[in-house]
Each structure stands twice: as structure tokens, then as C-alpha cells.
């Protein structure tokens, strides 16, 4: 019997198409196979870049962290680094270590959400519950250090806002020990789970030869087989003084190498390995942290005049390369701040390309395994 409807259109979203935010996909389906996909964005557009041109340099700090909600600290760090670059400031050594700790905590909490999310989109809801629950322990430490759970506004141009409390080391060590103990459980539940492997291996593949050409960065690039990490390539904060490994395909440590290149399985495995490295980095940074000032003695905020020039700084976020292009004409306000979100390429071009040939049921897991965060696409 001939099927009555050969081809049909599906609208996924704007509510949770496998991304942390509102974004939708318009897909054309034949049978169960996706023929074509188009990304529709703009549900979270707030015009940040316009607002930043209207505010003085310091007023932009509380604004930038709202660009990526699951991992706000990378924005603060990148914006601060851009201002410091234009001003020619060198921040105190202790502040660099504190920034490293904060950024790695942010990476851990973002990865916990993503790994849980990938598993949940394949039916393992326990993992999502665990991910969110364990992330809360990190948020508690954030609260102790910065005073807020989600938006910390802790990293400022010139250093960090205040010194960490005296008991930070004990607090963090306790949480890290706990997370380290939990890692084998996550592995059993996700990576070593036969059901997960059957669903995730060889699905949504980014070919190795295309990855760089498409502008893929971060864990997605590393899972395609490149050991490239901006923490190593262009060290910022205190990453040049810390000894850590960059996990990449096919060196997946104790996990089996099951597939060719970057599929859902490898992307999850790389994130699991990165979490272990983050724990390692925080431990080292806590141990090596020197004493001293945490904030540069700089002029009064309202009087800042940033020298004219162009600056591009980049930070390795949990999703990929987060870049800030800042242009100043020597005035009190920036002329232009352009944010390069990692999801910009992952969510639109890469997803539209690799979606072809996917099953409909594999669409959302693929989208979430790319770790697409819509607010940094449209800003």
C-alpha cells in the first residue's frame, strides 16, 4: 500500500527543542527521516549589544552575565578581559586563580546540566534529576563566595569583586569529593549503559574533516578528533600555571571508543572527562593560590575612559569559544560590543547540516548534545 502522506513538516519548539531556552526547528520529514531542517531563533532577543552602547563600561558588567544563563561567568570574564586588554591592565595573581576556580565551577555546573539533559532526552530521567541536584551543591558554594546562585557578577574588570571567604577551601573540597564519588555512578548510568550506547553511538555525526571548516569549537570539536582548547592555546586567568589534560577523541580514557568521530556518545564522554579535569583544576588552583590583593586599584568607575582601539578576547566555555569583540573610541561608553557565542554555529549551521538523515526521535538528543544555548545566538 502506498503511504497517503509522503512528506510532512514538523515544528519543534519554541519550547524545549533540546536546548536550554526557547528556540525552534522547522523540519521536513519523509517517513521517519529528516530531509531538511531550518533553525528559527529570536525568541530571546533582548538587544544586548544595543543596550551596552548606551551604558558606561562598568554598567555593562551586570548586563553581560545574562547572555548565557547556564554559565554566566564566562561572559563576565570575557568582557572584563576585553576591558583590561584595552586599558592595559595586569590583574593581581590571586584574582587570576580565583577566576580560574569560578570558571571551572561554572563549567562543572554547566556540564552536569548538559550531561543530564542528553541522558534525559534519551529517556534516562534519573540522570537529569541527579545532574540538577548535584549542580545545586555547586550553586551553594557559589552563593557562599559571590552571594548569588545564578548571576554572580563576581568577576570585574581589574580582578574579582572581593576575596573568597576563608572557608572556601573546605567547602569546595567537600563538594569536589562528593562529585568525584558520584562520577562512577554517572558512568554506570549513562556512558556504560547499553541502552544509551545503542541510542547514542553513530548518531548526529560531525565529520572530522568538516569540523574546523564549519566553525565548531569546544567539546564538540574535541570529540571530532582535535586536541584544541583555548585554555591551552591562548591561556587566560591562571590556566598557564596549572597542569591539566585536554581530553579528545579517540583518547577517551577508560571509556570505550565505539564510533567514528563526533556523535552523541563521544560528545557525552568528552564532557564526562572534562568534568574530571575541572575537578582536578580546581583542586590545583586551591592549592597554589597565592595571597594578596584581588582587585586592581583603578580609578573611580564612573570616570573610566577606555583608550581607543579594537580588542578581541576569547574564553573557552563549556560550549565552545566565547569571544568578545570590543571597540572603543576613547569614550565613557563602548562603541560596539559584539559577542561570539559558540551556539551561533552549532545551533544554526551545524545542526541544519547534520540533521539531514536523522530519525525524528534522535533530533532532540542531537540538538542537546551540541549544547546549544539560544540566548547566546540572538543575545
Amino acid at each position, binding site marked *: 500500500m502506498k503511504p497517503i502522506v509522503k512528506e510532512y513538516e514538523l515544528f519543534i519548539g519554541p519550547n524545549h527543542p533540546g536546548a536550554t531556552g526557547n528556540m525552534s526547528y522547522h523540519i521536513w520529514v519523509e517517513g521517519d527521516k529528516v530531509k531538511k531542517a531550518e533553525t528559527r531563533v529570536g525568541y530571546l*532577543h533582548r538587544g544586548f549589544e544595543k543596550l551596552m552602547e548606551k551604558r558606561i563600561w562598568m554598567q555593562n558588567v551586570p548586563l553581560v552575565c545574562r547572555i548565557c544563563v547556564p554559565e554566566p561567568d564566562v561572559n563576565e570574564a570575557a568582557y572584563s578581559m576585553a576591558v583590561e586588554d584595552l586599558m592595559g591592565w595586569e590583574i593581581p595573581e590571586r584574582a587570576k586563580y580565583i577566576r580560574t576556580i569560578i570558571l571551572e565551577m561554572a563549567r562543572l555546573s554547566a556540564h552536569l546540566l548538559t550531561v543530564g539533559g542528553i541522558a534525559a532526552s534519551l529517556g534516562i530521567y534519573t540522570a537529569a534529576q541527579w545532574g540538577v541536584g548535584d549542580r545545586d551543591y555547586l550553586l551553594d558554594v557559589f552563593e557562599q563566595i559571590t552571594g548569588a546562585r545564578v548571576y554572580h557578577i563576581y568577576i570585574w574588570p581589574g580582578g574579582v569583586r572581593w576575596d573568597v571567604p576563608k572557608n572556601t577551601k573546605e567547602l569546595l573540597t567537600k563538594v569536589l569529593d562528593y562529585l568525584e564519588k558520584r562520577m562512577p555512578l554517572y558512568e554506570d548510568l549513562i556512558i556504560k549503559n547499553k541502552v544509551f550506547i545503542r541510542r547514542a553511538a553513530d548518531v548526529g555525526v560531525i565529520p572530522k574533516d568538516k569540523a574546523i571548516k564549519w566553525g565548531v569549537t569546544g567539546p564538540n570539536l574535541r570529540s571530532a578528533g582535535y586536541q584544541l582548547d583555548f585554555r591551552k592555546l591562548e591561556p587566560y586567568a591562571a590556566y598557564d600555571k596549572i597542569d591539566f589534560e585536554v581530553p579528545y577523541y579517540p583518547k577517551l580514557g577508560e571509556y570505550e571508543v565505539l564510533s567514528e568521530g563526533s556523535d552523541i556518545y563521544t560528545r557525552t564522554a568528552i564532557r564526562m572527562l572534562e568534568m574530571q579535569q575541572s575537578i582536578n583544576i580546581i583542586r590545583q588552583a586551591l592549592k597554589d593560590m597565592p595571597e594578596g590583593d584581588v582587585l586592581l586599584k583603578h580609578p573611580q568607575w564612573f570616570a573610566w575612559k577606555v583608550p581607543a582601539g*579594537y580588542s578581541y578576547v576569547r574564553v573557552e566555555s563549556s560550549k565552545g569559544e566565547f569571544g568578545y569583540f570590543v571597540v572603543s573610541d576613547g569614550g565613557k561608553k563602548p562603541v560596539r560590543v559584539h559577542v561570539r557565542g559558540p551556539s551561533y554555529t552549532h545551533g544554526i549551521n551545524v545542526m541544519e547540516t547534520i540533521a539531514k538523515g536523522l530519525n525524528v526521535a534522535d533530533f532532540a538528543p542531537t540538538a542537546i548534545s551540541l549544547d546549544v544555548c539560544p540566548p547566546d545566538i540572538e543575545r
Partner: protein
Amino acid sequence: MMAKELFPEAQELRKGRIRIETTKDKVTEIVKKLKENGYEHFVMLSCVDWIKDGKFELVYHMWSYEYREHVMISIKVDRDGDSMVTLRDLFPQIETYEREIHEMFGVNFVGNPRLGEFILEGWPHMPPMRKDFDTEKFVNEIYYKIPEVKEE
């Protein structure tokens, strides 16, 4: 070859940041040449509005993993009705940046089939990222003027 060797006119902003100022017609060639010489990661395309000069500055950012160097290729186009050739054949992701700049600034990219509504929906005014668009005035005139629901 590194950007400095390829283009002697390039200016070094700091270590690992190169800036090349050029003209509209040479961009395609430069981007192609850099791509063949190891600058294989296209970072982004951004646009700066220099309203006093009546120009938009388009900045093509490229990065080389091999040399650890970031190149900004900068060109100026007129603010009114000027257009630029699309480079989507060289790097597929440029298409999206061009769509955004077309919507937010109004620069036309010849050869890009997907220009049109991207982020905004039914936007009737001038492209919002232009400097002469005053967002505060717009908000006061529209959103704060929308009447509250009167209850009898």
C-alpha cells in the same frame, strides 16, 4: 605562512592579534588566501557603525590554530544602500552572520539567498543596531505608551 608575511601592511595590535585594513574588492581574495595558509577557523563577522564618517566597518575575524594568531580584516562600506559580496562559499557559517548584519544594520550581501527576517518578526522601523536608532526614545514612545487595561 603567517599573516604578516602574506600581507606586509598588516598591523599588530598585540601578540596574536593582527589587523588588516583593506577595501571592499580585495576581501574575498584576502580571506581565501588566509584560509589556504592555515587560518582555517572563521571566528565571526561583525559590523561597527561609525556614524560620524557615514560608514559601516565590517570586520572579518579569522584564527589560525597553527600559529595561534587572530586576524581582523576590516573594510568600510557606505551606510546607505551599499552592498557587499557574500562569502558563504568559503565558510558556510558566514551565511548566518550576514543574515544578522543584514537585519540589524541593513547591509546588503549580494548572493546570500537567506537574507530576510531572522531574529525580529514584523519589525517596521529602521534596523535597530544603527546608531541613529534611539532605543530609549522608541521604548518611551511605544511600550510605555501602550495603555493599561482599565477596569470599570
